[in-house]
């Protein structure tokens, strides 16, 4: 490299850096515009998970709206199966890590990550690479393989699930961020946010014995998540919720954010091609429990394509 080329290159890099600054400013301007009136639901696509989350959360008023200073946050991903993230059965570890990072930046005291897996918990944490991701950002991965962590609670206004053994971290967290992955499901058709909450109880098979849809809806009012982030980056469009092979995974690069758990599930169901009304637990949670709205036409939705 001679001197002239050196200068030329340096100039190019400088220009690049400067344009980066410009872009950042542009973003701030952009988000200011929407801060006045937060949307009910934000849907975003065609980006990497970190970028999509950062972009979408601004339209909901930023992460600070949900995470107060010195609060304990529970991030509840779907880590049901001991499969690598590429198989689309578990929540994207990059997304979980990124949300944890943003929570810490917003002043969270502690960020917990927990799921009581269908398969063996320790293997699920490891294979889904969420263990590694949690370690990277300093979040606490909570084990669930023993009754000592679970407490018996009464579920108000319940029809089927009148009481349940619930993990203590779920009971004690100030902020609950539900981060399900969008998947088809063999019996409930779709598993999104409401169904993901099943992973905080000890005996999931009580639900299976006693009308699954009713139990999911019963439990949904016990603790409403402050924010639901539906990971639809890789979507199992068939053979869910475990999937048979990589062939079952569609890369959709989509994400849905909403403080309304029912709306998030309804949007997810639409992506899978279902009418939300057809899915039992969404209908019951919305119409009988008044938890939220599944009729997306009534909501103020921000749609972004990057």
């Amino acid at each position, binding site marked *: 490299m001679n001197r002239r080329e050196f200068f030329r290159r340096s100039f190019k890099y400088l220009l690049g850096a400067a344009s980066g600054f410009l872009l950042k400013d542009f973003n701030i301007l952009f988000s200011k515009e929407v801060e006045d009136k937060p949307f009910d639901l934000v849907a975003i696509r065609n980006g990497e998970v970190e970028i999509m989350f950062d972009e979408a959360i601004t339209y909901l008023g930023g992460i600070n709206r949900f995470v107060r200073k010195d609060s304990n946050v529970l991030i509840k991903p779907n880590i049901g199966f001991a499969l690598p993230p590429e198989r689309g059965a578990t929540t994207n570890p990059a997304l979980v890590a990124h949300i944890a990072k943003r929570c810490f930046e917003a002043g969270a005291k502690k960020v917990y990550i927990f799921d009581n897996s269908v398969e063996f918990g320790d*293997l699920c944490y490891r294979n889904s690479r969420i263990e590694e991701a949690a370690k990277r950002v300093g979040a606490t991965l909570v084990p669930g393989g023993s009754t000592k962590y679970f407490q018996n609670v009464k579920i108000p206004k319940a029809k089927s699930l009148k009481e349940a053994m619930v993990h203590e971290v779920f009971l004690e967290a100030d902020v609950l961020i539900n981060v399900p992955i969008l998947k088809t499901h063999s019996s409930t058709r779709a598993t999104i946010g409401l169904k993901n909450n099943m992973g905080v109880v000890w005996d999931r098979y009580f639900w299976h014995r006693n009308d699954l849809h009713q139990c999911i809806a019963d439990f949904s009012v016990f603790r409403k998540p402050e924010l639901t982030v539906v990971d639809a980056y890789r979507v199992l469009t068939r053979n869910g919720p475990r999937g048979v092979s990589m062939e079952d995974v569609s890369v959709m690069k989509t994400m849905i954010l909403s403080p309304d758990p029912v709306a998030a599930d309804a949007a997810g169901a639409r992506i899978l091609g279902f009418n939300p009304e057809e899915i039992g637990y969404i209908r019951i949670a919305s119409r009988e429990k008044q938890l939220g709205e599944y009729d997306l036409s009534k909501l103020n939705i921000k749609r972004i394509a990057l």
Partner: protein
Amino acid sequence: MNRYKILSLIRFILGFTFLCLYGLIFVGVIQLTPLAKIQFIPAIFNLKNAVLLSFFIVFGHLILTVVFGRIYCSFLCPFGFLQDLIVLWRRNFSYRKVSWFLTIFLAFVFVISIFYSTFLFGFLDPYSLYGKFWSLIIKPAFLIVNNGLHFLLPFIQNLRIYELSLWLIFVFLLYFSFIFSFSFFLGRFFCNFLCPVSAVLRVFSLKTIVRLSIDNTKCIRCMKCEKECPALCIDLKNQYIDFSRCLLCLRCFNCPTHAIDFRTSLKTKNSKKEFFNLSKGFILFLLARNKLFAFNDYRKLRRLPSPPGSISLEHLKKNCVSCLLCVSHCPSKVLKPSFDEYGIDGIFMPVMNYPKSFCIYECNVCGSVCPTGAIKPISIEEKSKIQIGRVKLVKEKCIVYRDKVDCGACSEVCPTKAVFMVEYEGRLFAPETETNYCVGCGACENVCPALPEKAIYVEGHKIHNKAIIRKEKKSTEKLEDFPF
């Protein structure tokens, strides 16, 4: 420190190292399971299954024995050394002749076990006995204490535990205490009177080149060596060491005048004639053997499958020495030592413990740790084509068919979707099975929430079958625009 002390010390340290090393390998603290393959009996089984490396291992064992005597018994065999520890403070043994009849009998047990049924190895192979000692006693004890403590102490985590039949532990403990209580009178009782490896090596160390012998001129007849020898092979009255039975523990190096030392010698007693007379009798036994072990099928209950890679129940029974390395290492703890699941001649061998746990589809640990090839080392791709059992759905017990509510737990966890959901009565989804896809992992049986009995279970195959892999086109659904 003289030469004698240094040699004994080296032997003791080596023995102790192998004792600890194998113990830690058995419980999975040290991940060095291939080391199990250098043990004598696993190497012999690998030789039988034509594994090239085992040829060198067996050859090495034999060369060592022919040149130096029973090095294997000295420190390589952890079970032998364990007995050394038990009799460490005993110093009042006496010489005892062990007839060649017993030795040849045990050598035939060795041959029969290798080619016909490993049932007797469950009780006689020192390597697998040591494995059982850890996997049936030490590890479960540790896990039970750990899981008890985890309720009191926050930093201790609950660990998965494999199921054990109490009868099995009872049988094993009885046998174990039998061996060790006799050790107090007969030194290394197991090595002297029960071990088939010891018998085979005794035959090979008949003409050992470097051997321990007594120097007549130095010996002061103090009887110290005879009283200390746990192999009971020093006959001081006749100034004779039966070196074919010497376990090279080197305790006789404590001799005050150092009359006992290694010397090269080629003189031996001849016992060829005895050997051939005995052979005739055992060939008859061999022929009768098939009648003796024909009680595999007495169990009328459902059949639990054998682990994937074991090819068939017959292959397992012919190759498994029941060291329980696979049981101890199984991540999902679906393997347990059998008691009567395979019949009496399958005692201690690994069996899939449904519905307590299930076999992880993407796991092949058992085959990769198995030192004898009883469970073949298979890749995950090969494993996905093996059907160890077949799913059976009992619709009368199923929650969807019986209670008319959605459930689908079985299909949820099925890794191949051999259990899939179909529309039922318009608004429900009910399970159906396609057994060709089933690998028999038992996940469906494990999760089935139906009470009082499971509505779905896996019936094991005696001979493993082929599973068909579900072929579907790549899912190409793209999101062109938001559908809302």
